[in-house]
């Protein structure tokens, strides 16, 4: 993970050192900080050392949860504290994030049952110019819009980061091409870098489980996944904020 990946908008990709703070306390203490301040990353202050020792972000929290659920391999360079944590999870001892079974139950609930397929989705038509998307994102204070065709079917996602990335290098004439053409160009360039093309639309169906959605967010490294009905129309969106809102209810209970 380097700091320049445009997919990781809003998430810090700075290297962190798990040795700095016992991971368990980290999650317990930092999650409310992220949620209550509506931020996506927070510096970690170690009282014992009286200094800031790293950054904690949603990506870290998600990785932690996935390890907890044994769905992901533990990192190679795990610290003693992390190993302790994994061992605790394996032995089903009490873990900082609350009861293990409750977490499992949430992971198996569908997005529909979690109520995540009824969000008000902000979108732009694929034929509209990129400028329209920019204006809409700006006036609604969002960083991303669903790109839809005339029938309301999801074509893709346009984000502020993509636009900013392009405008750093190129002329403003890009603002007048259609949103669909724009997102195609972004896809074209990314696939060449990796030698692997991504699916044009990063979405998840309303019948998918919460756990699967987490896995897909982690695997594709995007900030949000659009929730779609069977016919491809958009029903909602699941962002990392939504993920932790659902999970924090477990901590509170």
């Amino acid at each position, binding site marked *: 993970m380097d700091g320049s990946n445009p997919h990781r908008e809003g998430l810090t990709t700075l290297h962190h050192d798990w040795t700095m703070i016992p991971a368990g306390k980290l999650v317990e203490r930092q999650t409310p900080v992220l949620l209550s301040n509506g931020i996506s990353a927070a510096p970690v202050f170690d009282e014992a050392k009286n200094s800031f020792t790293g950054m904690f972000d949603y990506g870290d929290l998600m990785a932690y949860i996935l390890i907890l659920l044994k769905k992901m*391999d533990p990192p190679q360079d795990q610290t003693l504290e992390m190993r302790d944590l994994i061992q605790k999870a394996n032995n089903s001892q009490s873990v900082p994030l609350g009861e293990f079974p409750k977490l499992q139950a949430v992971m198996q609930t569908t997005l529909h049952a979690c109520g995540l397929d009824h969000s008000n989705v902000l979108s732009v038509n694929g034929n509209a110019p990129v400028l329209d998307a920019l204006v809409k994102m700006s006036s609604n204070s969002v960083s991303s819009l669903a790109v839809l065709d005339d029938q309301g079917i999801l074509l893709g996602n346009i984000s502020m980061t993509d636009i900013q990335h392009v405008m750093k*290098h190129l002329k403003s004439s890009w603002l007048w091409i259609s949103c669909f053409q724009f997102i195609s160009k972004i896809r074209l360039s990314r696939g060449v870098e990796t030698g692997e093309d991504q699916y*044009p639309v990063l979405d998840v169906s309303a019948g998918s489980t919460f756990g699967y959605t987490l896995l897909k967010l982690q695997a594709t490294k995007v900030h949000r996944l659009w929730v779609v009905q069977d016919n491809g129309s958009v029903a909602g969106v699941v962002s990392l904020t939504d993920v932790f809102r659902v999970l924090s209810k477990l901590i509170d209970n």
Partner: protein
Amino acid sequence: MVLDLDACIDSLFKRQLLAESVIREICEKTKELLMSESNVVHVSAPVTVVGDIHGQFYDLLEIFKIGGYCPDTNYLFLGDYVDRGLYSVETMSILTCLKLRYPDRVQLVRGNHESRAVTQTYGFYTECMKKYGSAQVWHYFTDLFDYLTLSVVIDNMIFCVHGGLSPSIHTIDQIKVMDRFKEIPHEGPMADLVWSDPDPGREEFAVSPRGAGYTFGSLVVEKFLHENGMDHILRAHQLCMEGFQVLFDDQLSTVWSAPNYCYRCGNLASILEVGIHGERHFNVFEAAPENERPSPTEAQRSLFGSNGNGTGTGGGLNGGGMFAGNGMNGGSMAYAALAGLDSGQDAIHYFL
């Protein structure tokens, strides 16, 4: 219409586009042929297996030069015929004609790019619009894609598919009973077969970073081969700098047949020659020589004449130096997506 396939093939080798009505006819006839093919086609060696081509027509011609021409050589193409390259139309046209002309000597497997959603994003749709002035040819070909088989088995030993394995599929028989005659779904076994990738660092399945399909590991491969009595999985779908890659203790290979991918990756390509005793030989090759590539004007041509869109400077292409010598860069791939724009627009280059 009386179809002269040999004349069509001849024209295509001369880089001439077929008329729209001819495309319609060959697609109709090929669909009839493909309809009776199983989702798992059984073939015998010797056969030469080709990976992703992505519209790199000149490199397809190179493949015929080094691998032999149809019908002297049996060919198995593993998909991804279109998108990204500049000649997806010519590539798909000639492969369709060859399949129709020599149905038992040419096998065409469906790749993840043989899809309406993907071709609208990655260039084939735009190229069809540019070369034929309408989306009709794109419709004919994408309808044809729905009929392409999903997998091939060579001598009951080598399982060939575009992408990889699926957590929903344990046996060949499960693939045989699927309904493949539709657009590739977002999720499910059909999507997995064309989107999945092996992961040598893993043992099991995991959600794929591509947003469709899965990554799969060593235990999955061993189990699949064992359950189906086979000894090798052959697939494409991922760029290989050396033209091919062998994984999992020679239980799986990736073959990649688009050299210097997107005219800038600088990679080698290969075709895999499978012999009658099951021997596998990767025939590695480089991109076709520069001096055989067309000038920008020729690349711009459409069915309406070489200057069909009044593109003296090239509609969307940078003036001068784009194709000359070593001028190839990522911008040439933007050509396909740019084809809807006025020639007054700047070319967009991805210097990433």
